[in-house]
């Protein structure tokens, strides 16, 4: 029997008015990969913040027993000294600095106040090799991809002599290849005796790496599943997370008659705005009918977002060529306003970055793209605006006390609903949804799928971009497969399968 490395005993953490953690127990044995799963807001991150000392000893109840002794961490440094290192979901790297500088940020090599650069880069290279990166540690962070940045984060943790590594959603911004590589790296570390805790929404990944899975729901531990003593699959985990079996993760869309072609894009080519010779979207043609949900599957960096944004009023890219037809008529959309007027909507993948105004209330965000709808001659009808926000809050079941709540205070799923509300209020005929369910929990995903179905039933055309294959397969009538700026395949719902999609991508890769 392996030795117990960490025990979190009856942890209770209260925030003003909310009990974020209620009597949580977690036991991690040495040398295992322990997964922590639960819906958004279940308390996973809070628990890890308690463990790493972000919430200092005394602000919570219960004990942390690590390596046989009770720990009273006052700050992150305390837990790091013990070898507990957390890698947060949002990468904490300085883009303009080199890998080496980032790796030892706050932990510099050399004498006090004098950095030894040879030692810094020498050691950095050593740790980079351990995570399988061949880059020199003098390369700047901004010049490597997100996947590699995530690996740098791990190397950084190793440099702190981590014994217990906590990874919070490590693959949320990685494509499938990079994700798989990262998970394999975790398994490799496990062989070498490292203990890890992984927090993830992606249950297939959890099943792939975890030895044990602890499910947290509403701030309490529900159960711990041992993956070796019983057969665990995704539906078994979901049952624990939501407290019921989700028999169908994708709601059926029935009785929708496909109408005429609503939008048609032909020979669409887009160049990178800075690197003029780089083609980001290469000769893409697509169409979508009324009432149809078309999926665009592609890995991150395949050019999906760039394609969508370039169609949406040329809001991305340079030298855009190709034709765009809406309702059979050729049209040129020079800016987002013209796109909106042409009944197009683009629901961004990056709701915090360019989707919502987080510091403003739901009301303001709902009306932002269609101020004409709540104003007359440039003067806002506040009552109408309020009523519209309330109407959409009800329609989309957005959970918030009032529409005056700032969007920044909402959970990811509810933020996504506000973003959808904003675009639905522009009354579009064609909606491009870019990763509509990224980073939101299972329950909210289901509700978003229902909204998509309702839109299709109402005769709207929906283009759904996603890198989650089950979602694409479960929701689309037709699937385009995109790889390196090109469309490399088109499949109907009946014939599509994970294998076929991957085969298309692999084939395209070989063709080069």
């Amino acid at each position, binding site marked *: 029997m392996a030795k117990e490395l960490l025990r979190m005993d009856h942890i209770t953490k209260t925030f003003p008015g909310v009990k974020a953690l209620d009597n949580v127990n977690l036991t991690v044995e040495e040398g295992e990969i322990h997964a922590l799963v639960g819906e958004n807001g279940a308390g996973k991150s809070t628990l890890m913040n308690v463990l790493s000392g972000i919430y200092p000893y005394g602000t919570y109840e219960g004990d942390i027993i690590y390596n046989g002794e009770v720990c009273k961490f006052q700050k992150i440094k305390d837990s790091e000294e013990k070898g507990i290192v957390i890698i947060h979901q949002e990468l904490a790297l300085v883009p303009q600095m080199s890998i080496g500088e980032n790796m030892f940020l706050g932990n510099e090599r050399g004498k006090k106040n004098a950095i030894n650069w040879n030692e810094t880069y020498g050691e950095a290279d050593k740790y980079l090799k351990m995570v399988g990166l061949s880059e020199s540690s003098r390369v700047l962070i901004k010049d490597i991809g997100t996947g590699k940045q995530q690996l740098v984060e791990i190397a950084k943790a190793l440099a702190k002599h981590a014994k217990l590594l906590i990874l919070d959603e490590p693959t949320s911004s990685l494509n499938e290849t990079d994700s798989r590589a990262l998970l394999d790296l975790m398994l490799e570390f496990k062989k070498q005796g490292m203990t890890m805790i992984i927090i993830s929404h992606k249950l297939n990944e959890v099943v792939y790496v975890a030895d044990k899975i602890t499910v947290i729901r509403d701030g309490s531990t529900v159960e711990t599943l041992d993956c070796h003593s019983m057969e665990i699959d995704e539906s078994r985990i979901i049952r624990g997370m939501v407290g019921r079996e989700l028999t169908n993760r994708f709601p059926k869309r029935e009785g929708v008659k496909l109408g005429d072609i609503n939008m048609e894009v032909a020979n669409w080519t887009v160049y990178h705005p800075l690197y003029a010779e780089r083609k980001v979207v290469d000769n893409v043609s697509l169409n979508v009918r009324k009432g149809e949900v078309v999926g665009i599957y592609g890995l991150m960096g395949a050019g999906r977002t760039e394609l969508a944004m370039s169609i949406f009023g040329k809001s991305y890219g340079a030298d855009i060529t190709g034709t765009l037809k809406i309702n059979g008529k050729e049209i040129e959309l020079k800016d987002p306003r013209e796109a909106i007027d042409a009944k197009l909507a683009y629901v961004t993948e990056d709701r915090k970055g360019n989707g919502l105004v987080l510091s403003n209330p739901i009301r303001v965000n709902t009306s*932002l793209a269609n101020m004409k709808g709540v*104003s007359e001659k*440039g003067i*806002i009808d506040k009552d109408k605006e309020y009523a519209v926000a309330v109407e959409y809050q009800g329609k989309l079941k957005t959970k918030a006390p009032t529409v005056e709540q700032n969007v920044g205070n909402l959970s990811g799923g509810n933020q996504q609903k506000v973003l959808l509300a904003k675009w639905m209020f522009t009354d579009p005929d064609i909606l491009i949804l870019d990763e509509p369910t990224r980073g939101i929990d299972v329950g909210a995903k289901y509700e978003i799928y229902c909204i998509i179905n309702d839109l299709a039933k109402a005769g709207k055309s929906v283009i759904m971009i996603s890198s989650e294959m089950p979602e694409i397969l479960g929701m689309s009538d037709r699937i385009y497969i995109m790889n390196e700026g090109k469309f490399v395949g088109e499949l109907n719902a009946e014939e599509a399968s994970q294998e076929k999609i991957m085969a298309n991508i692999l084939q395209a890769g070989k063709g080069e």
Partner: protein
Amino acid sequence: MANKNVVAVLKKNAMLIVLVLVFIFFTVTTGGQMFQPMNFNALITQNAYVFVLASGMLMCMLTGGNIDLSCGAFVCFLGAVGSILMMTKGLSPFLSIILMMIVGIIYGCALGYLIAYVNIPPWIATLAGFLAFRGWGTALLSANSSTGSISIAAQKGFLAIFSGKVFSSPVGKLNTVCMIAGVIASVAVVFLSFRARSIKIKKGYAAESMASLLIKCVLSVAAIMLFAYKLALAGGIPTVLIWVVVIVLIYNFITARTTIGRYFYTIGGNKEATRLSGVDTKKIMFLAYLNMAILTVIATYIVTARFQAANSTAGTNYEMDAIAACVVGGVSAYGGAGNVFGMVVGATLIGVINLGMSLMGVDANWQKVVKGVVLLAAVVFDILADKKKS
């Protein structure tokens, strides 16, 4: 629960309460001098330019903490241009006013273009103006006058529009027009407050309680009537008060009720999201600085008329006064938050502190120290209050 409400109300009006306390403090320390009619008058005439410039600065700051460093220097330059037009060239005040406005609009367009369409960081673009216009203005003045200052005391028409009193009466005698204006303003405030509440109730929205509305009305009316009474004794309504009130009301309307005003806020909150929502964000940035220049022109009229002359030190540190008024009034230094009411309170607070310290005979250098501390305290308070909320 009631306690919580009281705390919330106090927090929301913290700066207003500070303003009242500071006013009382100076009234006591100056032996009641602060409460003299003449000083009510001075509070307005001396600070009119702050309200005007801060209205423009507010719009700039909303777009993301952007500021205009050049407005003070531009006041100096434009004052020189105006006085030369009127005195040296002998143009009529009316024509000069229009020409000055045209010069301001040209500058605003140039500045707005550079910032919005060429993407020059606002503080750099306006720093250039800050340096250039002070020099240019001084050069113009010394080329046209041996003393480096041009008096416009002879331009009675110009002075009448931007300084002096409306229906003035001898000091010490109660000015009827002023009192009537006070009554009208009071009635308007009460009427509008009650109407807003009844509309809310009729439509079923959350409305404030009758008690809090009554308290608010009583306090507002008391403040207005006190001001009206004091001004009536000081010879009547200063002309600049009308300018200030009109400008403040216009900008209050723009920021609170118009779509274009809304965009200033959302750009400050998230520029990219606003752009992708079909808003021409560049146009809004352009308008922010064009608007700032237009208000700077109006501030120039007011300042030149008050001093009855253009000189090379005119407008010194005005940009800082405007920024300070906004920041003290709760306008976010990062953009996206703040309103005209807060800005007015902030500007008044700084005005009261200036005036009070002058009356107390505090050394001018120490006055600057105090203002700096107040500014810092206001920002620290703001950020701490925000932190508690989250």
